[in-house]
Structure formats: structure tokens, C-alpha cells
């Protein structure tokens, strides 16, 4: 199954680059959904011998949330708040793409120098996970709009989930569901907050929110 695993991991990397290079918000949201599907299918490809009903159910919930519900919530925030769909980066798209590629190179080098105490199911998995996490943090910092920050948070969470897949074949079902539930409510609350931000500030530019200091 190495071929499938690599295909899914490369899809995740492509989604990262897609988010970094895209100048329109709807396109970024589609990239996030695409990454969600790849991440949701990953456990089957990584552990083909261990497919249980629990795992199938979990994957279904995960894919539904990450590929359908979250993008839908973000898109609704985009429409209802009538946000201008331009991304408005602090750091240009070209430089962002370089950062994305550099994060992958850095992650690969990191795991070369500090070998894991376990044999991960795929050599690429951990570097891709860490790189996804870093890209998420970068998007969070380097984009001005509240909506892109929420998007960056979700990419960051995807990275952490991928990392978890390499470490734990499967966490207890209740825990996995708990984590997903938390992320779901995080997106839900962030979506509502974005809507209010747009109404109160007439913009989603977080640079406008700078009254509190000292």
C-alpha cells in the first residue's frame, strides 16, 4: 500500500501549497476540504490490516467534518459576513510557497537527525505532518483576515492529527471523537465570532482590532 500512502501524503503537501499560493478565499477553503479527505483516508492506507468498524466510523465522521462541515461553515461565514474574497497576505504568495517547501525540507532534515524510537508506517508521514503543522502556523501569522486565521488553525490541527496517526495506531475511540468534537465546536464558535467581527468592525482585517494593549 506504499503507493496509496505516498499518494495521500503528497496530496496533503499539495493542499498546503494550494493554501499558501491561492489568492482567493473560496479556493483556500476547497484546498482545506481536499486535505481533509486525504487525511481521513490515510489510516486505511497506513494500517490496511487493522480495519475495524470503529476505524471506519471514525474515518467517516472525520471526513464528513473536515471535508464537508468545516468548509461549509467557513463558506457560510464568508457569504454571510460578505467578506471580500481576497486573501490579503502580509507575506506575498511567492515567498509563502517558498516557506511551504522549506518547511517540508526542514521537517525531513529534522527526522533524519533525530530518528524516531519507533518505525513509522511510512517514512514520509512524520515530515509531512510536521510540515503541515508549520504551514498552518505560518498561515495564522502571515494572513490578515480573521477567516484565514481560522483556516490556518485547521491546517495546523490537520498536521497534529497526521502526527498522531504515526504515533498511535489508534487512540481509544472516545478520545478521537472527543478531539473531533472539540475542533468542531472551535470552528463553530470561530465562525460565529467572525460574523460578529464583520458586523462590528465592517472588516475582517485583524489589524483593525488593536485597541487592547498595555
Amino acid at each position, binding site marked *: 500500500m506504499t503507493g496509496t500512502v505516498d499518494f495521500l501524503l503528497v496530496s496533503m503537501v499539495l493542499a498546503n501549497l494550494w493554501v499558501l499560493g491561492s489568492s482567493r478565499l473560496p479556493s483556500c477553503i476547497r484546498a482545506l476540504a481536499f486535505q481533509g479527505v486525504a487525511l481521513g483516508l490515510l489510516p486505511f492506507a497506513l494500517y490496511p490490516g487493522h480495519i475495524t468498524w470503529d476505524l471506519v466510523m471514525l474515518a467517516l465522521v472525520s471526513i464528513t467534518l473536515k471535508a464537508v462541515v468545516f468548509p461549509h461553515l467557513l463558506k457560510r461565514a464568508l457569504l454571510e459576513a460578505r467578506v471580500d474574497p481576497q486573501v490579503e497576505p502580509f507575506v506575498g504568495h511567492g515567498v509563502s510557497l517558498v516557506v511551504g517547501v522549506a518547511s517540508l525540507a526542514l521537517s525531513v532534515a529534522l527526522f533524519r537527525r533525530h530518528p524516531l524510537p519507533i518505525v513509522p508506517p511510512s517514512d514520509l508521514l512524520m515530515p509531512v505532518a510536521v510540515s503541515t503543522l508549520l504551514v498552518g*502556523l505560518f498561515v495564522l501569522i502571515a494572513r490578515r483576515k480573521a477567516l484565514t*486565521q481560522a483556516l490556518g488553525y485547521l491546517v495546523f490541527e490537520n498536521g497534529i492529527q497526521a502526527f498522531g496517526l504515526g504515533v498511535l495506531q489508534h487512540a481509544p475511540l472516545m478520545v478521537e471523537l472527543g478531539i473531533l468534537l472539540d475542533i468542531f465546536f472551535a470552528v463553530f464558535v470561530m465562525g460565529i465570532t467572525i460574523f460578529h467581527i464583520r458586523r462590528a*468592525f465592517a472588516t475582517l482585517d485583524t489589524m483593525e482590532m488593536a485597541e487592547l494593549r498595555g
Partner: protein
Amino acid sequence: MLVSLLCLLPALAGLVAFWLPPGPRVRRLLPAVGAVHFLLSVLAWNEPSGGGWLGLDALGRVFLAITSLVFLATSVYAVSYLREEPAGLQPDMGGEDPFSNAKESVFVGCLLLFLASMTLVCVSRHLTLLWVAIEATTLASAPLIYFHRHRRSLEATWKYLLVCSVGIGLALLGNFLLVLAAARGASGGAEVLWLDGLAQGPELDPHWLRLAFILLVVGYGTKMGLVPLHTWLPDTHSEAPSVVSALLSGALLNCAFLGILRAVQICAGAGQAAFAQQVLVGFGLLSMAVAALFLLNSKDTKRMLAYSSVEHMGILALGIGLGGAGVFFALFHAVNHSLCKAAMFLVAGTFLSTFRTRLVARLGGAIHTLPVAGGLWVAGFVALSGTPPFGLFLSELGVLRAGLQVNPWIAAAFLVSLATAFVGMARVVLTVALGPPVLAPPVRESWGKSLPPLALLALALLLGLSVPAWLAEGLRQAAALVGVS
């Protein structure tokens, strides 16, 4: 059984509150649930339970007791607070930018869900469940911070949501690294996440364990307000309604501290206590010093209290880091700080609703305008600054002595920070209480708003005069559980 009931009661009551119409009925739900929750917590004190997902150990029951007590006091205050809040638009602090409040039922519901999530933090026996619970506290409290619908509180809410969610995300990564550290142990990786399985500690790989510990401290430290991860804390505490600020400082910060204590437990079990302690001493001293500097220049009552919380969280981290008697006194400090800080935030709330401002420059003569609240304000400051006979005096003295035993320079830095913070707070507190009056007296004070801070401060005073044997024993057991020497 009792433990599940403790979580379920506020969770179900919270969901019910969402559907009730706003009014006295939904308000009264708060103290009712608070009282039952407190009774159950008292019952649970003597009923140690373990095994499975939920259970109470010596550490959990201390933090559960504080959380429940602070919630009970603030819930009584909240009834008066919500009754007095105007229904429509009200002027902002500066007089411009009128704002309205969010729906009362949503506020009450979120408060109860907040209590449920904090209870879950105290009773989790699995580190990932602990993570789920701490993230849930963020999500339940975010709508509370945006109760007053104006732009500043919205800015604070967004900052809180993002900074804490990302911080806590790093703690989840820390959990995964713990599993890696345990991967070569006899019982395999994932077992390490069960708190009952701490005995397998020595088999953890030190390299990965240290990395995991740092991520856990950074993650939960964000929530606890350790410098430099505290950026959300002053904004959130100052913009939230005072009832919520009291809960954030008095209960939530402790819950995050419990998350860090769990990580210390694991390090200590694996023979890496010295490393964990060094990290905590560093964070502790830095938090105290930076908070003290900000306190010197505070212009806003609630921001001052928030920075004071950062300072006291620094003391907690330092106490654990110093080890020895420091651990016991750090836990005792957590109890006392919660009582005093919750009381101070409630009094600050009374000031805010009377004077309609938090700016020190526009406040004065509180002790003439509001004799009871003004008196409590000064008493609370005396308690918070570690003056005898309040309990914080004993705990700060204990941490100081632990510091002297480890390294006199640490003790010196501790004292300098405490003195700086004292000077900064004294200026603000005394100006507000004794400065030239800005409102003609008298203003009627309601018991619903005076009694809760009075009770909390009275307890802090009692703890300073004599620590009851059961509490001392409980704290000793909890300190032993942390496992650092």
C-alpha cells in the same frame, strides 16, 4: 458514580438553560447548580476513586474543591449582576459606542457548561481526555467573554480563541510525543497516557520525554498565563464581565495548572523531575518579573488584577519548580489566590457598574461611595499582597523558604518581584479607594453583590489564621502525588 454526576449535572443544566426564557428563573439555576455541585464536591473529597476514564485523586479533589467553591460564590453574585444589567443599549465606558448584552439564557448556559468542562479537567484520568476537557473550557468560555457586545470584547474573544486553541494544540502534540517516549517500554506506547499507569515511568526515553514536557508546558502554560504566552490574559480578563473574570482567574487558570502538574507527575515518575523543575523555575521567575513591571504602570483596575494573576501563576510554577516544601505551599497558594482574586474581580465588577469606568484616572473615593465594596477592595489587596494574617502570607513565606534552600538568588528575585508588584498595586488600589471622590455618596449596595466577595475573603483570612487538619492532610497528599523532591 459521584464523579460522573459532578460532570453531568452542570452539563445538563447548561443545556436546559439554553432553552429557558431569559428572566429570574434561568438566573436562579446558577446558584442552585452551584450549591449542589459544591455539596457533591464535598462528598467526593472523602471518596477517593480511581480506575477508568473518570476518577478523583488527591490533586484532582483539591482543584475540584476550589473550582466548585469559586463557582458557588460567583453564581450568587451573578444573580444580582444579571438582575441589574439594563435590557437595552447601555453606554460604553467612555460614554460613546453604546452596546447591548448577549442573551441571558446563553450566558447562563455557557457558564454552566464552563463549570462542567472545568470539572472534567479535575476528574480526567487520561491525558488526552484532559486535553479534550481543557480545550472545551476555552470554547465554553469564549461566548462568555463576548457577553457585552462591543468591539473591545470581540477583539479579546478572538484573541482568546486563537491563542488558546493553538497553544492547546501544541499540548496535544506533547501527548503524542509522550507516546513516542514510551514506545520502547515494556507495555507499549499509548499506556503512558493513563494517569493510573504512572508506575511504568522509568522506561520512558528521556530525550523525547523532555521534548514532550516542553510542549505540554507551552500548551497548558498558554492557558495558565505564563509569560511569554500570557498575551490573551489581560485583554480577556479586562473585557469579560467581572463574574466571568472571577471564574477565569479563580478557577480556569488553576485547571490549566493541573494540566502542567500532570506532566510534572510523569516526568517525576520517569526520573526527569530535575529537568521539569528547571523549566518551571524559569517560567515562574520570568512571569513574576514581567507581571510586576506591567503592574507598576497599570491604568485600569481589571487589567491590574489580570497582571496580578500572571504574577501569582508565576509563583505557582516557581513553587513546584523549587520542590521540597515549595510544592505544598504552591498548592496552598493556589487555594488562597483563587479565593482572593475571585473576590477582587467581583468587587471590581461592583465598581464598574457603579462608576461605569475601569480607568484609575477617573476613579476615586470608592470607600466613601461604596463603603462595603470599598472596604473589601482594600482588604482584598492586603490579602493578595501577602500581608499577614491572610493565607497568602503563609504560602509566599513557604515558597520563599524553599527558594532560600535551593538558591539565594532565586529567593532574591522572588522578593524583588513581590515588592515591585506590591508598589504597583498599592498605588492603584489606594487611589481608587481613598482618592478624591468622583461620585457623591451614598450608593445603595446589594447583599447579593457584597456577600460573595466577603465570604471568599473571610475564608482566605481563616486559612491564614489556622489551616484545618483535613485540608493540610489533603494538600500534603496532593504534594506527594506530584512526586518532585
